[in-house]
């Protein structure tokens, strides 16, 4: 038979945001009637890619071919007209409108051009819902009164109310119970049997095995593998593609002897309902402890709970033997904890301010008297802290938003250095940091530990945890499944652990 052109063919797509290259030449081919899975860690570029496909973002470069013809997706409406529908993770439904009104939003069946024919809308909605296996949803009900699963069905009905050829589903199973997931898969199978293509985003590998035809893996804004067969590619290979290194990083030397001092950070039975199971851990001064795990394993949640930014359900955190007041960031900071959060721009930096002011914000009492800031002392202290970390450019007066990702991270570290903290909590310290700048950041982190800081490190990149940490705790679904010195572990072993939960030795 004649080689059919792919339904959708994206090639060389790049998209940059200030300071970040979110997509760096991504290719994606989707055939009619297939389920094409998109895999990748947080920040790998999945969301940006589907927003380009939905017409919500315009790519900087690259071409999109739709049924063999070059197209430009100028707006979400343009994408919709071609037959591309997107079901976002955060459902974009209007809660105060009815199911039928939501389904037909923007293309209501009308009489005389403007009078909405409510009954016709309800009838066609009921038909769509029946086709989706949820005839019990009343088209007249308000969407706000429906369950998460039912809302997702409404969102899908809306997609199908257009003449749709490609549906993008962004982690559709995240909010669903197991039997609802089964229904979702049945719907996906029905759609593909009708020749509709589905781009399915999930980080649950077992789902991809069940319904996927082919897999494209994104990492750091690049497609590291495209069109792998979903059923036969070994899980370990897929995970290694998601988490593995592209470049050999140089990791600093570990100290010959493990630090012997008393632990400065002790976590006892700490847990949070629905996020992670009771956890015990200790970090000594001079030691780097790593938490390894995939997305959804509770990594960031653990760090933020230790820091008091989330309130623990059970357990306690002790710093230097003293228990912290639970749920209080201020108590944690006063006791000597410092957090470099995962989302630097949203959670750590004051983007309108200079480097100096970003660095000094947690230690203002050090160079102020009676609330009056000694700006000379502030600048001097900020200069000293940023020099110690070799922050570039060597001028703390520049606005922090002009720095590269790696230097922004150094500004966050300098903040805690200036504060004089004892325990540093690092959440994905090299996310958004150029590959070339990573080795330098690793050296900085190790040096801080050598100078007596206790470091608790979270990373989705297994080689990073293994290369940097002294001791590693492996997490799977909010539970520690293994703990060992880093030198006794290797990447395949950790990958087995994060996926299977049992040491496959």
């Amino acid at each position, binding site marked *: 038979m004649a080689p059919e052109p792919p339904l959708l063919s994206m090639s060389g797509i790049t998209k940059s945001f200030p300071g970040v290259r979110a997509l760096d030449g991504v290719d994606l081919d989707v055939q009619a009637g297939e389920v094409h899975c998109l895999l990748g860690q947080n920040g790998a570029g999945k969301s940006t890619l589907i927003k380009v496909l939905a017409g919500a973002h315009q790519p900087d470069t690259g071409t999109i071919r739709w049924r063999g013809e070059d197209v430009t997706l100028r707006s979400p409406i343009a994408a919709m007209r071609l037959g591309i529908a997107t079901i976002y993770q955060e459902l974009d439904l209007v809660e105060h409108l009815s199911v039928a009104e939501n389904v037909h939003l923007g293309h209501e069946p009308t009489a005389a051009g403007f009078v909405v024919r409510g009954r016709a809308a309800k009838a066609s909605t009921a038909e769509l819902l029946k086709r989706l296996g949820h005839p019990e949803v009343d088209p007249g009900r308000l969407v706000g009164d429906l369950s998460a699963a039912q809302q997702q069905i409404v969102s899908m009905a809306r997609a199908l109310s257009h003449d749709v050829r490609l549906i993008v589903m962004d982690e559709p199973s995240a909010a669903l119970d197991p039997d609802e997931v089964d229904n979702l898969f049945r719907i996906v199978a029905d759609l593909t049997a009708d020749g509709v293509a589905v781009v399915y985003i999930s980080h649950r590998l077992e789902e991809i095995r069940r319904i996927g035809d082919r897999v494209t893996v994104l990492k750091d804004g690049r497609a590291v593998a495209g069109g792998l067969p979903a059923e036969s590619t070994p899980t370990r290979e897929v995970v290694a593609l998601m988490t593995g290194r592209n470049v050999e990083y140089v990791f600093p030397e570990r100290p010959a002897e493990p630090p012997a001092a008393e632990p400065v950070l002790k976590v006892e039975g700490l847990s949070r309902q629905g996020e992670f199971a009771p956890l015990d851990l200790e970090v000594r001064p001079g030691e780097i402890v790593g938490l390894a795990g995939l997305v959804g394993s509770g990594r960031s949640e653990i760090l933020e709970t230790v820091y008091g930014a989330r309130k623990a359900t059970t357990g306690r955190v002790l710093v230097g033997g003293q228990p912290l007041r639970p749920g209080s960031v201020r108590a944690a*900071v*006063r006791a000597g904890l410092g957090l470099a959060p995962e989302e630097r721009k*949203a*959670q750590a*930096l004051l983007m309108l301010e200079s480097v100096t002011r970003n660095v000094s914000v947690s230690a203002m009492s050090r160079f*102020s008297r009676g*609330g*009056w*800031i000694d700006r000379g002392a502030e600048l001097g202290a900020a200069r000293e802290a940023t020099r110690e970390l070799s922050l570039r450019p060597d001028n703390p*007066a520049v606005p922090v938003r002009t720095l590269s990702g790696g230097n922004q991270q150094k500004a966050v570290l300098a903040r805690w250095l200036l504060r004089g903290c004892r325990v540093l909590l690092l959440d994905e310290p090299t996310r958004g940091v150029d590959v070339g700048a990573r080795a330098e950041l690793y050296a900085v982190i190790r040096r801080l530990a050598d100078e007596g800081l206790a470091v608790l490190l979270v990373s989705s990149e297994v080689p990073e945890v293994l290369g940097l940490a002294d001791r590693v705790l492996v997490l799977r679904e909010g539970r520690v499944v293994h703990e060992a010195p880093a030198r006794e572990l290797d990447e395949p072993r950790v990958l087995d652990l994060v996926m299977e939960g049992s040491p496959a030795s």
Partner: protein
Amino acid sequence: MTQHVSPPRGGTDKAAPVEGPPAWRVRLGRADVRTLTLLGVLAVLVLIGGITQPDSFLDTRNLQLVLTQASVIGVVTVGMTFVIVSGGIDLSVGAIVALSSVWATTVATQEYGFFGILFTAVVVGVGCGLVNGVLIAFGQMVPFIATLAMLASARGLALQITDGRTQVVTVPGVLDLAERDSYVLGIPPLVMVFAAVTVIGWLVLNRTTFGRRTVAVGGNAEAARLAGIDVRRQRLYLYLLSGLCCGIAAFLLIALAGSGQNTNGNLYELDAIAAAIIGGTLLTGGRGHILGSVLGVLIFTTITNIFALNNLQTDVQQIAKGAIIVAAVLVQRRTASTH
């Protein structure tokens, strides 16, 4: 100034901004463009006033009057600027001024003389600010709603206290403040209070930890929280500060008008917000300029004065104000996008 602070160490780092002027000049230039634009607008207005009414506008007494009128709303605007920098809004300032002014001029309060009136005006202002602050910081209410509720209640309470009557002040010490005899070197005492509030406000915002925390909370509340700042307490303090400014403004208004009325301070909230915005304060928070706000107030007051001297209707004046707000924001958008 700042050009001395960057020693030429490791020359390669400074290579990036080759084609532009040095960083300190860019920053100085940007701050100056904003202030100079506002000063330019003010100068044009003065020119217009001088040409249309050469005798009455440039008269010393008229200029003293303009500054005195600017003082009341000016003090309110300084407090408002802090609130807006923190990412909030205070719609209740006009109503708080009204309530403070009538509470401080009841017959019972006036018995306590000068300090009784001053004390009551300030305490009522701070009290209203406390309610706003607690509702917003600890009740998790949206500032818009909490202060809107305060606007309604404080106006209602002011009407209840006065029963709609003007409460004439009989305390000589208060009335003397607005008399020509008390001017120092030609400067009315009320204007000196305004100047003092401006200077203190500028110092607090730019030179103290309180100011830094305000900017941090407005720039990125989550980052401020994770950096160890007590965001809620800071928000509480900011609404207290706004209430305090309203109390001071109410006292100035009492001295100026010689009475307390429940209709005082009508639409001050809009004038104060507008002055702060054209002064370069971001309505989304994180950046603000006390000096810009004060220039904004002076611009609006001068317009009012020129229109009054030329016997023009207030409706034309409102249209001119609206046009200035739009023009100022458009100019700022352009300078902001050229970063």
